């Protein structure tokens, strides 16, 4: 039996609702038990060293794991960040553990742990683009981990796995891609650093209700059969494979359930995607602009 390569993973949770973690637990092939106990591929084992919702230990002894991982894996680890990084008020809106009796801001922990990381996986829309906590008026100065790294001069390769929450396949698939083929090559990701494999196609182009859209059969209230455009569907501007991958073992997804897509894996979620149940006016489209520095989709008002 050859030696098994241990791939160390540290999974940190910042300003999150833990929905990303819950979603990843729903992975089917491989199951979460497969992922935790077995080799992902022969000879390669994902070694989940730190995860606040799953790990056995608490308190000081688990903070020790973070230090210990840096030492026993000098080549680094994969750093998964779930949740946004609150930066207002010296980062005190989210703290993890204490040092010398003072709470450690999540912001500081992130800085420290990105240093030795091989790469950062921004899991979920909050970590990828800021998401819900950064919604107007962004009370805690929350930002995506990518924006946070930029603004702190940290230069690490990253992959975004957005979704509120992301589909388990998007995360597990992105990990598998890294394990098998290394970090994604430029042509494998879109301009936002998402694997095209999962985020390459527009929902609207693959939607089972597209026939209704083309023939003008519109739902005028929720629960109606028909295209959901008039009741607010954002599948029109959202890139993901939901229509054919579907959710929870392929049994359903938002639009099949009669609910409009709310654009949960796009950089403009939630601000640009609301009001959720109002039509996404065509006149808004040309005014949308991607802010290079933050990776956020913003609505440009004024002459611009």
């Amino acid at each position, binding site marked *: 039996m050859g030696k*098994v390569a241990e791939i160390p993973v540290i999974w940190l*949770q910042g*300003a*999150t*609702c*833990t*929905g990303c*973690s*819950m979603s990843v*637990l*729903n992975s089917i092939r491989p*199951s*979460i*038990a497969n992922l935790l*106990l*077995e080799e992902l591929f022969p000879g390669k*084992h994902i070694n*989940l060293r*730190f995860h*606040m*919702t799953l*790990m*056995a*230990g*608490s*308190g*000081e*002894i*688990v903070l020790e*794991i973070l230090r210990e991982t840096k030492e026993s894996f000098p080549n680094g680890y994969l750093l998964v960040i779930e949740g946004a990084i609150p930066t207002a008020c010296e980062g*005190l*809106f989210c*703290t*993890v*553990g*204490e040092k010398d009796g003072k*709470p450690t801001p999540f912001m500081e922990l992130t800085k420290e742990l990105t240093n030795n990381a091989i790469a950062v996986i921004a899991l979920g829309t909050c970590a990828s683009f800021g998401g*819900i*906590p950064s919604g107007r*008026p*962004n*009370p*805690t100065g*929350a930002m995506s981990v990518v924006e946070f790294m930029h603004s702190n001069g940290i230069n690490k390769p990253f992959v975004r796995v957005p979704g*509120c929450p992301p589909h388990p396949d998007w995360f597990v698939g992105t990990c598998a891609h890294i394990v098998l083929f290394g970090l994604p090559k430029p042509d494998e990701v879109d301009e936002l650093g998402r694997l095209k494999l999962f985020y390459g196609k527009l929902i609207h182009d693959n939607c089972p209700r597209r026939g209704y859209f083309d023939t003008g059969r519109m739902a005028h209230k*929720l*629960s109606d059969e028909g295209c959901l455009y008039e009741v607010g569907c954002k599948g029109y501007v959202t890139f993901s494979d939901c229509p054919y991958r579907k*959710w*929870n073992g392929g*049994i*359903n997804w938002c639009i*099949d*359930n*009669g*609910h409009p897509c709310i654009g949960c894996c796009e950089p403009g979620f*939630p601000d640009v995607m609301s*009001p*959720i*149940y*109002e039509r996404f006016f065509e006149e808004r489209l040309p005014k949308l602009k991607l802010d290079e520095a933050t990776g956020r989709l913003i609505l440009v008002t004024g002459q611009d």
Partner: protein
Amino acid sequence: MQKIVIDPMTRIEGHMKVEVTLDNTGTVVEARSSGLLYRGVELILRGRDPRDAARITQRVCGVCPVPHGTASALCLDSAFGISNKIPKNGVILRNIILASEYVHNHILHFYHLCSLDYADIVRAVSYTENDFEPLRQFASRGELAPFMPRYEGDYRLNDDDNKALVLHYIQALEMRRKAHDMLALFGGRTPIQAGIVAGGVTSQPTTDKVLSFYWRARELYDFIANAYLPDVLRVAKAYSDYFGIGAGCGNFITFGFFDLDGDEPDYAKRKRLLKQGTTDRSLKYEALDLSQISEVVRHSWYDDDGTPNPKKESAYSFIKAPRYNGITHEVGPLARLLVNYASGNEEIRKELEILMGELSIGVDSMLSVMGRHIARAIEAKVIAKALCDWVLKLNPDEPTFVPYELPSHAEGIGAIDAPRGCLMHSVRIENGVIANYSIISPTTWNGSPMDDNGQRGPIEEALVGTKVSDPENPKEIARIVRSFDPCIACAVHVTNLRGMLIREVRIFA
């Protein structure tokens, strides 16, 4: 005097710190529980289309998003004047989607968040049966993360019980996932469903879905009755001292849930599978009066006007302190169980009496760490059974949704019990948008800090008086805290509630 700080408190939702002070006999004399993440979701809701609340508030908690979606939909229904007009299908589907979440939550809580405090997964790698092959393989690689490190000592299950617990820990990973799949049949997807909206539910109850749902619910019922409940008994027998640990404040409140009729507009009076009300150690049932709820912030990181202020001197938590009648109350499965026991709910009485007989304990012993686990398991069984009945009451030919006019000015309130306890959403709409939104979640109650009168929160109260056998490995503390199933993302809520008067409900900062 010795201080123990547990930060991060893991295997709960979110960012929590627990700090206890021991006297020289090792007994807890003071305890503080702190929530350490603030996001300000209620502030983010202001100025938005009211209907968006049913989506955005689900992101308050990804472990239990459905209760927020449901409470929010009920809250909007009441603001839109349609709380008694939701079609029958819509009422049943909401119950079904939320009950699926309960089943998922209780399985997750017992096995994945708690059982590692009792079952010895490290000992299990030496078992020789075939079932343990994956674990042996895992251990043979020489890395035991994330099951190590942990607090050591006191893993006292015998090998037979330990085997059952460890195997079911793994099987339960699949069962909780199956509960989520079941939820998605009518919820669209999960976590964070896309089905429950103001006015009802978007999905249609077709025969194929009813069939599929029914058999999924049956499978989960079997797991709960034949694995989960027996496993809780195994732990309860081996750790019977935990019937005397972590009693808590002894006052209980529940808003009840699973609407059995949609005609009564007042949620505090609605007929529910698990009845709303309060009780205490005397087990006398009292009806619920929402106007007795208040919230204070002396020890919370908010200024008096509600502005978050993490540097406030007297404070130690982002959680506020809600009280009923000015007194600390515990919420959650134990509260629901005892209130329903006190009010004469036949099914709950029967289930509880059988278990108490088997364990030779009285109702008093239920006020404890083990009592909370037992309450949760009984409830899971009752709810899984109800799911099998409800799904057959759906009618594919009837509507699931009722249209409504958006008011430009209105107020609304939604009150239900989430898996972890009382959940209240309230909204004020002005000029067609949200002017104020407020949420009081279960862990706001259970995880609350000391109030302005010096009364501790329920978790703190449950910790005081506990003897810690080994301060290096404070297992007793961790077990007590986890028995409440804390959820910090839910608990931390906001800001300027002063002056927000919603009908009979008085909430002040």
